[in-house]
């Protein structure tokens, strides 16, 4: 039957063309033109991969700028979100807990509203950014624990700020970049 033979041949040739040649040629071109990006924009320190600029990692300790909640705990072998809806009991309970913890952690007044991104989970579970408000909110905590003047932390955030353009993207900082820069600032703590 002519049509069946044609179907099989078109399927096979298309598979070779769009499934093998096309991605292989692109991989080659990408590896030559943009090797850093094609391999995942990885960050190296002392010949060791410490992460990727694009992939969020978990920051929960007091001495670092903290990242957003993640339903997959920043396990980058996977990705995904809570998928809890706006009237989900579970979501609201979790958010209430996170708001309280955040206020206590940063010594905020018990009635102060907190930035949405710090208490609500991202879509990928790997969001590398937080909003500038979320970064500013953490200054006093980090300044105290690292014995750095708040003004230099403010300057650090300003240097790392990426701006929104006509509603595209929220004005933000990349948490890993910010924390890598933070480590470079000399601490004035007497106890080291």
């Amino acid at each position, binding site marked *: 039957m002519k*049509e*069946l033979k044609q*179907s099989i*041949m*078109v*399927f096979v*040739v*298309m*598979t070779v063309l*769009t*499934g*093998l040649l096309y991605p292989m040629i*692109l991989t080659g071109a*990408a*590896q030559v033109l943009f090797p850093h*990006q*094609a*391999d995942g924009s990885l960050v190296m320190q002392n010949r060791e*991969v410490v992460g*990727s*600029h694009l*992939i969020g*990692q978990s*920051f929960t300790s007091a001495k670092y700028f903290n990242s957003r909640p993640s339903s997959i705990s920043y*396990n*980058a*072998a*996977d*990705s*995904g*979100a*809570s*998928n*809890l*809806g*706006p*009237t*989900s009991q579970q979501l609201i309970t979790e*958010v*209430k807990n996170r*708001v309280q913890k955040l*206020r206590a952690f940063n010594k905020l007044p018990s009635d102060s*509203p907190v*930035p*949405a*991104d710090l208490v*609500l*989970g*991202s*879509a*990928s579970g790997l*969001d590398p950014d937080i909003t500038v408000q979320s970064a500013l909110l953490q200054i006093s905590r980090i300044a105290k624990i690292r014995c750095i003047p708040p003004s230099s932390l403010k300057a650090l955030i300003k240097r790392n700020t990426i701006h*929104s353009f*006509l*509603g*595209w*993207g929220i004005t933000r900082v990349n948490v*890993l970049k910010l*924390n890598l820069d933070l*480590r470079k600032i000399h601490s004035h703590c007497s106890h080291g």
Partner: protein
Amino acid sequence: MTPTNLAGILLFLIITTLLAYPLGEYMALVFTDQKTFLTPVVQPVENVFYRICGIDEKQEMSWKTYAFCLLLFSLVSLIGLFLIQILQGHLPFNPEKFKGVKWDLSFNTAVSFMTNTNWQNYAGETTMSYFTQMLGLTVQNFVSAAAGIAVLIAMIRGFIRKTSNTIGNFWIDLTRCTLYVFLPLSIILALILVSQGVVQTLGPYVKAHTLEGKTQTIAVGPAASQIAIKQLGTNGGGFFNANSAHPYENPTTFTTFLELLSEFLIPVALVFTYGAMVKERKQGWAVYWAMMALCLVGILTALYFETQGNPILKKAGVAHGTNMEGKEVRIGVMPSVLWSVITTDTSTGAVDSMHDSMTPIPGLIQIFNMAIGEAIFGGVGSGLMMMIFYALITMFIAGLMIGRTPEFLGKKLGPYEMIMTSVGLLSSPITLLIFSAIAISLPAGLSALTNHGPHGLSEILYAYASTANNNGSAFAGLNSNTLFYNLTLGFAMLIGRFTTLIPGLAVAGSLAKKRLTPATTATLRSDTLLFVVMLISVVIVVGALTFLPPLTLGPFLEQLMMHAGRTF
């Protein structure tokens, strides 16, 4: 809803239209076998392709042969993709050593990609080898989209040919679409995406030692090549589970703009292709404005409600109640909403935020966009075809009102065309409503829900609206990788695909045989504002009549409950 947001949206729509117009004209040249600037490069490849596959370039097909080739090719694709998944454990390019995919999931995924739906019951980075992603899924991203465009082009030929028994050659339309349109655009887009940070490597997953002293395994892969065609072909199946919300799939604000642009580009361009092919560009513009008006209403409604935030979150201490659940900071609220509307208008189904976590009214807009058959620009090919169905119904109703035989583009519409149009328009709503009713009546349907109360109903409605119209996006809280959902969603996708495309070809075949009726002063013209308004009304009335009851019990009710502070 701020002036800044509105300016951002307007900028997006204008740039898309400016790029789509020349692309539409270019595609008209490609499908009428005329010389383009790419002909010298592509034609030699094309000729070799035909020779290897035994295709006669001069052969024309009747609508039945055309449909038969479409069905056979789809069947071969289905079996091929099914086998690749089952056997991936024994195939190369599998650095993470993934085992073969289970049979029911393989069936669902094979149907999903072959029908241009790209519903994902699997997580790419934990299930599929690079071999499956490239030689299986990427291939279907190309050919299922090309098949959709091929069928649309055949339908347009039905209007422009006179007393003809043929409507083109399926193999040639499929091949030309892939070689002249998809491959060049994909190569350009993929390279831009890599430059911005989308990964493209065959290497294994990366181990990182984080600043806080933990180990993080980072999934990578040949993603950019697949994402480019995933967007351009209104496919939507992500390389990664989080789709275009994943930072390696959509790393920057600029790529958000670019990826959204590329999923909108060809559906808009095809409207202009249609105008160019029927040699009355005003016809194309009339359809463009009808679609754009519906699109804008959807965008503005969804954006208004989403930017109001969630009053329950506000009470819990979240500033302004801003709903950042399931959204990324580099993308933001406006682009998340805009994307969710465009991805359901077109049949793309790629997501850059989690639709399940949006407030109820944007969810309603998304379900409505899909449920009316994705006629607002729609999937590549199938969308415009659906709008032409609506246009035929509009002419039929108008014809009844003024007591004349209805015609469209000079072709008289008879009972046969109207029956086929009704089948094309009504089969997916019927499928969606019946399957949803079954799912909410069975434990196997309900046990998959993440959310309860009215939102649970929305989750199920969304799933069947998405699959019966070959969209592929999801209220992803529905844990649908179960035997029940793999099979019912799989069948919904099959019905949705072929009960649209086959009636479309039947209409084309019947119209191609007819002669042209010269226009008189009494002819109802289809390039006027009056027609545009009537067309929009028909779409809204058909959609509202069919879906008002379930939408009231799902998203509408949830909106009221949310403002009353009720949780489930």
